[in-house]
């Protein structure tokens, strides 16, 4: 597609449930990033993929968070046993290898844990 696509756009879940967030990057973009944007906070880095491997997953806040990427394309961010503090907008971005021209972000998934 022409842009980065994320789904769902909104997700409300009960505390303790697992959720999966999907990111479909721009075709041909080898680098993929996940960020989290909490109310009143700056964007917080979660994980970086180059192809299917994740050389930097240092931003994942706990072992309840995991992510994978398949076929060098679609990525899924999974949060297990969700907590209220996980409520945020989860943003995915993709770029060419060099990332010199800035990422292209998707519109995000707004996650609300009740």
């Amino acid at each position, binding site marked *: 597609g022409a842009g980065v696509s994320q789904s769902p756009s909104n997700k409300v879940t009960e505390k303790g449930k697992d959720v999966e967030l999907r990111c479909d990057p721009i075709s041909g973009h080898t680098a993929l990033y996940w960020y989290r944007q909490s109310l009143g906070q700056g964007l917080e880095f979660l994980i*970086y993929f180059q192809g299917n491997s994740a050389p930097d997953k240092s931003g994942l806040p706990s072992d309840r968070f995991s992510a994978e990427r398949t076929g060098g394309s679609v990525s899924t961010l999974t949060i297990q046993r969700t907590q209220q503090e996980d409520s945020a907008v989860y943003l995915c971005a993709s770029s060419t290898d060099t990332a010199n021209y800035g990422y292209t*972000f998707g*519109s995000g998934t707004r996650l609300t844990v009740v």
Partner: protein
Amino acid sequence: EDQVTQSPEALRLQEGESSSLNCSYTVSGLRGLFWYRQDPGKGPEFLFTLYSAGEEKEKERLKATLTKKESFLHITAPKPEDSATYLCAVQIRGSTLGRLYFGRGTQLTVWP
């Protein structure tokens, strides 16, 4: 500790009233400084990248400048459609290629 600080947090301008947004950074080594615009309910949209002190970039009513300690986003004769949150971010030498460290943003409102 590496830090990116944006000011002011919020700015209200009348249409045509020029102003500047500030992004100050304290990093061990700057690889690049990025400006993004974010509209409500949308992801950030890339505006500029600056790499070295003295560099300037322009796009329509926006001009970004960079010094060794800070960057300014100058808005000349703004229009209501310039209303958005403007985010500053840095890439740091020695960190993951492409990983950005963001400030909290400046929310700009331009009223007619």
